[in-house]
């Protein structure tokens, strides 16, 4: 059997819409140095580097090779993974398996994006088949609008319900010194913000950010020596289930989340996630996902997401706080976003989350969303797994 694996250090940059003060390698370096400092390690202690982003945002090929000066991968094993929006979570899943394999004792995992150097929609649009789909699938926003429309139609939710999600996350973001959008908003602010693709408005959507996140994964042989409270990886599950947009047969549910969460809860022996999970960092690129996807992961029945939100269950201090960091609607350096979810859960377990700390976190879940309606999930725990 493989080794048990934990996160023993995390580092994030200060995320902004444009970081003119650094280039990509410097951005990566900022996060890497902070993660090493957090773990009280040096780059010499690190056995290898796993890095990821979405190439077409920065227009740099072979990023594993290009990033060496920032990542510290010089004369070390360095590998790149990319899976679209899920990239950050995919990196964490890789960090886990590579350390669990016994091939690495300590691994530095880095997700980053310098979105200010890209045309986000122009880059995303090329994910689709060039002949059949590229003419009518227009980037990320319109696809998400379709999901919101289908959900509204089937379950009777309203834009006001979705706005409640943005209000929650933007309030939470005020507690996070790394967040890009720090400033409370109201339901009316969301409903009066510019319409992007019906029913989505500006404040329903995530921003795009420049930022990086680095995480040190360590094996059971050293984790407790490095860190008094390692955040143990308990389980991972993912589904990248469709190749083409026209394959997505059901728009009012995220089927990849339904399948991945089912597997995750089964691996964890969880029957009632709402009661048994202490905190979730959800890769929620727009407000509606905070309704639809929490239903798909089984926190409540389909159509009951809005009630959970309005009852405050997912707020700080609620039964199951979601996105204490402010989540993706406050900060979104895409290739880093999923890894930030993992780093934030690790901070919650370590009790190092500062003003955004949820009390007594024993079990936290991080998710990634991307590609063609894909989901990656990781569960972290305070107790060393058996």
């Amino acid at each position, binding site marked *: 059997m493989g080794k048990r694996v934990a996160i023993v250090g995390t580092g994030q940059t200060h995320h902004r819409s444009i970081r003119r003060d650094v280039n990509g390698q410097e951005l990566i370096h900022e996060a890497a140095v902070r993660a090493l400092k957090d773990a009280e390690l040096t780059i010499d202690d690190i056995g290898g580097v796993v890095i990821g982003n979405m*190439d077409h945002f920065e227009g740099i090929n072979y990023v*594993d*090779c290009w990033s060496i000066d920032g990542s510290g991968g010089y004369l070390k094993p360095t*590998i*790149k993974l990319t*899976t679209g929006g899920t990239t950050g979570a995919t990196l964490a*899943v890789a960090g886990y398996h590579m350390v669990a394999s016994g091939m690495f004792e300590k691994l530095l995992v880095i997700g980053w994006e310098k979105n200010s150097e890209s045309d986000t929609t122009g880059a995303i649009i090329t*994910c689709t088949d060039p002949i059949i789909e590229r003419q009518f699938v227009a980037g990320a926003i319109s696809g998400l609008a379709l999901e919101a429309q289908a959900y509204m139609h089937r379950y009777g939710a309203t834009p006001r319900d979705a706005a409640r999600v943005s209000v929650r996350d933007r309030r939470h973001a005020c507690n996070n010194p790394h967040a890009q959008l720090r400033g409370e908003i109201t339901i009316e602010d969301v409903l009066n913000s510019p319409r992007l693709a019906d029913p989505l408005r500006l404040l329903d959507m995530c921003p795009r950010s420049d930022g990086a996140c680095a995480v040190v994964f360590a094996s059971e042989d050293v984790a407790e020596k490095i860190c008094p409270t390692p955040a143990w990886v308990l389980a991972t599950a993912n589904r990248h289930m469709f*190749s083409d947009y026209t394959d997505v047969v059901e728009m009012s549910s995220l089927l990849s989340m339904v399948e991945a969460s089912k597997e995750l809860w089964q691996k964890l022996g969880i029957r009632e996630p709402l009661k048994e999970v202490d905190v979730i960092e959800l890769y929620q690129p727009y407000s509606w996902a905070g309704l639809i996807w929490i239903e798909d992961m089984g926190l409540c029945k389909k159509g009951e997401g809005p009630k959970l939100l309005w009852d405050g269950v997912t707020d700080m201090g609620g039964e199951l706080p979601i996105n204490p960091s402010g989540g993706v609607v406050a900060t979104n350096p895409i290739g880093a976003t999923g890894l930030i979810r993992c780093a934030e859960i690790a901070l919650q377990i370590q009790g190092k989350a500062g003003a955004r700390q949820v009390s007594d976190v024993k079990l936290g879940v991080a998710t990634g969303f991307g590609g063609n309606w894909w989901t990656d999930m990781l569960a972290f725990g305070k107790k060393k797994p058996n």
Partner: protein
Amino acid sequence: MERVAIIGMGQTQHAAQRTEVNFPELVYEAVSLALKDAGIGIDGIDNVITTCNDFWDGRTISSMATGDVSGARGKNVSAVEGDGAFGAFYGLTRILSGAYGTTLVTAYSKGSESVPYLITNAAFDPIYMRSLGLDMVTSCALQARRYMKRYGISEEECALVAVKNRGNALANPNAHQGMRITVEDVMRSRRIADPLKLYDISPVSDGAGCIILAREDRAKKIPHRPVWVKGVSFCADAYLLGDRELSECRALEKAAQAAYKMAGIQDPRKEIDVAEISEAFTYQELLWTEGLGFCEKGGGKKLIASGATAKNGDIPVNPSGGLMGAHPVIAAGLIRILEAARQVRGDAGDMQVKKQVQLALAHGVNGVCGQSHCVWVLGRD
């Protein structure tokens, strides 16, 4: 290390242009062959790793196109960007982690739909270096010059690699650049980037490969001999060409030494029976054989001139024809693993080397001028 074996493998017919298939169909072809080879259905696959590159594919999230055809529906899946040997490494660790019993790994390239100059130019610093016109070919020409000057290697000595590998490729039914040529033919071929001439440079091909890795208990129910993973490692050198000594390959040396240590190899020259390596350019085979420790630094030219790396030499290198025979870029390293594994199994057909193969080496490269290398050692027992 828990024992993991390659239990199935498949590769497409590689060609300069495969107009009858798109790249998901190319991958499907390789996957179907690999499953058939392993004698299992897609239900026997626990998880999937695809290998791709957004630049070579002209698509963002390029793994989107090849998940379904790799059989990832309903399974855990991930995607490595870069050479297929690196993708296979992640696939291996997913088994060693205890999470899965089998991993299916795919890699492909459809070079005919790509513009290699623009794609590899994009590997260079956008502000200072791209406008110099550097790409894979021109930067490797610089590396060739540096290497040849330092060790006094002639163009004719490099040309021996083209003669050997393109000749070997004649025996490879999947290759498309097999040809009987002489050193004079190489010397007379069109000069592309001094000192590299047309025949010094591998083609860019359409093609895909697939391997299936399995934990020991899952490797015993297959219709043929499992090929065991004995050692594997990878390593990256500095990014800027000026920060590296281009006449050496320290990253390859490090990766090879780590893989040899894992495999218990002390003298690679004696213990390795055959090697399949990624020689996109003729000089690279000489340089890489030095990095792999088959000879001393600067000794690559003597090694090939002695006939040692010929198909029936004592350490055959690229009996399949290597990248000179077919070069579906991102799949290149995975196909090297596959060809090395066939040698171990003893079913490499006309490419099979004479001596019985106990240990075979496979090698993949990422980045320009061999910045990052991945080394696999495969064994019979």
